[in-house]
């Protein structure tokens, strides 16, 4: 299993899909406004799930900011061994 997800890793993942540098990612941004589509979200989700985070597409898609994503991801991260 890949290394557990960290905030830096999270930023880096987002940055790749947003064509930004990790430090340019604004966590208050809305994923939709930032230009993500369902396929990108699904692909991101697959990556995060492979690090042991138990989340579903619907849960991610419901969020209206990247900060909410991180909240969700960090909460679920703890549930896994």
């Amino acid at each position, binding site marked *: 299993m890949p290394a557990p997800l960290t905030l830096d890793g999270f930023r880096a993942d987002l940055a790749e899909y947003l064509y930004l540098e990790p430090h340019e990612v604004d966590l208050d941004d809305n994923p939709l406004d930032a230009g993500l589509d369902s396929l990108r979200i699904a692909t991101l989700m697959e990556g995060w799930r492979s690090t042991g985070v138990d989340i579903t*597409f619907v849960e991610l898609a419901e969020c209206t900011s990247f900060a909410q994503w991180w909240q969700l991801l960090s909460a679920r991260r703890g549930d896994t061994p």
Partner: protein
Amino acid sequence: MTVRRSLPAAQEGIWTGQQLDPDSPAYNTAEYVHIHGPVDEAAFDAALHQVVAETEALNVVYVVDEQGRPWEAPAPTGAWRLHSADLTAEPAPHAAALAWMDEDMARPVDLAHGPLFGHALLRIAGDEYLWYHRVHHIALDGFGLSLVARRVAQVYTALTAGEAVPDSGFGTLESVRAEERAYRASPRHAEDRAYWTDRYADRPPVATPAGRTALPARTFHRRVIDLHPARADTLRTVARELSVTWSEVLLAATVAYLHRITGAPEIVLSLPAMGRLGSVSLRVPAMVRNILPLRVPVTPDDSLRDLAARLSRELRAGLPHQRYRYEQLRRDLKLVGGRRRLSGPGVNIMPFEYDLRFAGHSSTVHNVSAGPVDDLAVNVYDRSDGTGLRIALDANPGLYTEAEVADLQEGLLTVLEEGLADPDRALGARPDAERAVRVLDGGPLPAPARPVLHLIADHAARRGAAVALEHAGDSRTYAQLFGSARNLARRLAGRGVGGGDVVAVALPRGIEAVTAVLGVLLSGAAYCPLDPKAPADRTAHLLADTAPALVLTTGERAADFAEHPVLLLEQPDTGPRTTRAPSAPAPTDLAYVLHTSGSTGRPKAVEIGHGALAHFVAAATHRYRLRRTDRVLHFAPLHFDASVEEIFLTLCAGGTLVIRTDDMTESVPRFLDECARLRVSVLDLPTAYWHEVAYTVSTGSVLPESVRTVVIGGEAALPERVDRWRKAVGTSVALLNTYGPTEATVVATVADLHDPALAPGEVPIGLPLPGIRAAVVEGELYLLGDTLARGYRGAPRDGSRFAPLTDVPGAPRAYRTGDLVRVDEDGQLRFLGRSDDEFKISGHRVQPAEVESALLTHPGIREAAVVGQTLADGTRRLVAHLVAQSPAPSASEIRVHLRARLPAAMIPSAVEAVARLPRTDSGKIDRTALSTPPVPQAPATGSDLERTITGVWRQILGADTVTVDDDVFDLGAQSLQAIQVANRLGAELGRDVRVAWLFQHPTAAALARFLDETSPPPPTTSAAAFLADAVLDQGIGPGIHRTPGAAPRRILLTGATGFVGAHLLAELLDVTEAEIVCLVRADGRPEAGARIHETLARHGITLDERARDRLTAVPADLARPDLGLTRDTLGDLAATCDAIFHNAATVSILRDYATLRAVNTESTAHLLRLAAVRTTPLHYVSTLSVAPPASLSPEVPEAFLPAHEGLRYGYQQSKWASERLLEQAAERGLPVTVHRLGRVVGPSGTGYVNERDFLWSVLRAGVPEGIVPELFEDEVWTPVDFVARALVHLGLHPRASAGGPVFHHATLPRVRLSEVYDWVREYGYPVRCLSLARWRELLPRSADVAATTIAFFDAAEQADATDLRLGRIQADNVRTGLEGSGISCPPVDRDLVFRHLDHCVTSGVLPAPEAPLRPRRATPPRNS
């Protein structure tokens, strides 16, 4: 009052789309989940029912208000059944399951009544199940479907584990609506709108491979390919390398490919977008899917890398605005309707995780349909189990053939492969540059063409009993037709006629003519039809040129062919004959020779080979979608090549050719009536005649419902008539405009004039048929392909018309048509005119030179110029301009001269003497000047009627000199013009005007006198129809005699799925030991059986096992002569049934006769034919409503009834006509009985109520509102169980029915409506009785009363209030017949009505009364 809500934009778009074609199943979406493991069917059923109940979107209907606006109304889905079937016994279970799904998908959904969904669980192997889930797209989108599927898996898993079912977590539809409302009010909405309207302000052209648009069809072509996992991996790798997603790579490849085949500088795709990100709808099964347009500029040098980056940028810029509705954007941009569109082919990528588990068992999901396909749709399913990607290419069959879809798919994958192999390679290169010659290719034939004689022989061998021909009440099966044709072929062979010969056929349209044509072909010879009405002189010329081996004709015409060997068709077969069957003709052998007008002054004989004929038949059958069930009218005479189309297309498809009688075209309204009576489904009409039909349907007449396709051809269709037609008929009936010279076998190109995308005024001639190519060289049309004629026969040869076309690669042989055309933006051909002087009159090609040379044979004519003129209203006529010698011959003298030499269509309708002909500067005759028609002036003299008549004639003849005393035929009027005048006079005068009258009264004065004296016939055209139907075929009479009295072993019953029918079935099973064979409308035996058992269950009838074993359900279609049965089954039933109970009928108070006749009247004729074979008794269930009202007859005799004025509604008419058939059968000695019933109410024992019953639906609507209407004073009521017992007893005991054959099941006193209402009040419903109008007014629209009932009241209010109450009803035959049987009718009283009301309350149909005045429970029934 129930709540109704306006439709959100997403649903409204779909609702509107559905209204374009209400019977289309295209909006059904479906998928199936393949469950790899055992399924507990009961638990699955329970899970489905729970999930359906908790899914709000499945518990609504879509109703329409008075203004035609749609509303969504909650409507809890009542009882619905999971279709469960074990297919493991099938040879190919999975394929059988898919076939079942296909059938289910083909059923349209009634949005106003629902249900909107369907479920099936199909077992295909021991532990393999397919769960099929269908939903109308208006309710759910793809994501919504996945939410439901996930929930079903969850509930099912919990149920099987015996665990508590977790909450669904579904949000409400209201939350979605609220979110949408908030969005619309937000600044965000305005921003999104600004983004899109700005981005698409230039309304970019939309390029597609088809180059045209079409309405979404009812189905679609689909090509599925699974991208190998390795290729899918490459796709993902390349995507990462290009910093895009794999879906963007697929989109880029699609754009590159579309550019490659269209050459368009910009491609605009349609992208379905989930529209749920950040939305409450992520947890609501609903329809919220949106579509985003995606425009991508392309150049041939672009690589996958270039395109992917460009496309990704464009997509990411648009995505944040994805909530703005596509439908709204089209409105904003004024891109609604016509051929206007915002975006082209769709690419739908579905990345949802979808690995459902059912009680631990894994599953795979397969899409069945994603909804209608406008043009092309690439659907990509990510099969998350690592097996790669599935790509389904869906295409609109109106735009693409299956072969084209295959090519498109292959091309798309090729571009994808090229791009993946080298992302930097230029993808847009198009091999061929723009050419000077435009070639339109009809694409390949769907299947190789088969020789026409093989196809027809096949039908004769396999479906010999199917009807091939019908003419004036006479008919021939395929076996009979083929048999007679073969006999004729042997006779011809006996006369030495065979391959290489031509046989002239001089026969009028009819069964013999078609038989003759086939017989000649079977002999190996070719046929050459002669115009029976052509002048002898011309016929002699044709025969001399053609040199037939034989003339095939009838005795009365034999003298016309004295100089040729003649074979008389009707002569007994005495000549030498050979038993050796003639050998089958080769594709290169000649099939027929047809004559057409020649520019050198003589007719030309076109030779068509068997290969060309076969190719044409295959192509046109495919393009017209001709089916075996079609009934095609044979309109054209044999010497017109349209007859080739009618005869061979129909017979090769296995359909029925309905041959027109001469009097059918007496008037256009009559023609339409006859087409309705004959149930014609395909009309093939000369355009000139269709112009009249279009005019007539636009002035009040109705195109018969049976007609689904109209093919026109022969000359250019008038845009004005096309527009009239489309306004009157709409676009649901296919209107195919065909173009083609005889030299290319009947038809070369076809256009869909019913295409709603066609702008008004547009009349294309379309695209080539499959296998045919059209080349446009300097504006002139050349045709290429296998349907070209061999050439012209005999002298004069005009070989230059057939030559290799060197402008096209390979220099294929081409026919130069002489027609000038243009290819428009939509890729379709438009006819512009002729490159020479040829002119078309009533579909005849007329070369003016041929007419001129005939004119110049007259000694008094020095110079002649003949031109065609098109008058202001589109009427076409031929005008001769003559320079005469002195003394000048009169116009009528000239016509007499021409009539002896030319066919009628070639005789000029105007002859004008001039001093000299106008010349152009170069000295040629100035034909343009001569072609300008004069402007007719309004007549000034005569009575109003006379002026109307002369006015119409002036218009049609294009002459301003028609006076009231002119004989219009002396003025050159022709048959077609007479048809036009009759038609227009009919419309102007508002009455039927027959063509024959114009011939009988050729002056306006005489016709006006005649019309004044003849009062118009009653306006109801259907009156004639039902009287005409009520004539029993002469062939039906007693067959093999039978000894009556023995116990019946087999009984045939129709209508067992009805209320009365179910009780008849139960009674027959109860009192006989016979097998009861029920004919049921169903697709197969299992479905037929299921329908019966469903009916029995619904009516609370249970059968013991022995009874069940004696019940046989057979799928059938009573409206068809063979009852929809195979010949074997039909023969078996005729041989073994000892009695027939015919109870089936469509009971409708609203439908007109034309729509009821097939099921209600013709079925009786078909069953009588079956019964006659062994003189089997037939018992017919009729209705007291066929009786005359008291105002016409104080007493209703228990006997057959003559026709009367009270037969006003279609249902009455159809039942009366049925009885009339039985009356004739009885007169001929067939054992029949007729049982007239009144209102049949629920059985006396159970109190069950027939909810379909009219009166009960009135109570159901009125009682909750506290109001009931005044409907009638009193009527006959009979409990259903009594009727069934009495009817069966009378039917099976000849002694009991001795008093018959008519029986009135009306032995009880009539029930007074006021008394019924009193009982309703006593029961506890305080109802007020109102006049019908008032009741109707107060009744809420939403009240639960069947729509047809409401419609009936609305109609009844308009109708005059003639009292329909019946006089005293005799019923002695029933009383006598039942004596000693122990069967007596229980009383219809308060107790019975109470029991009915109890039933209504128990079953929830009516609310329980609040304060019953009496104990609610009725006293138990007495003695029953």
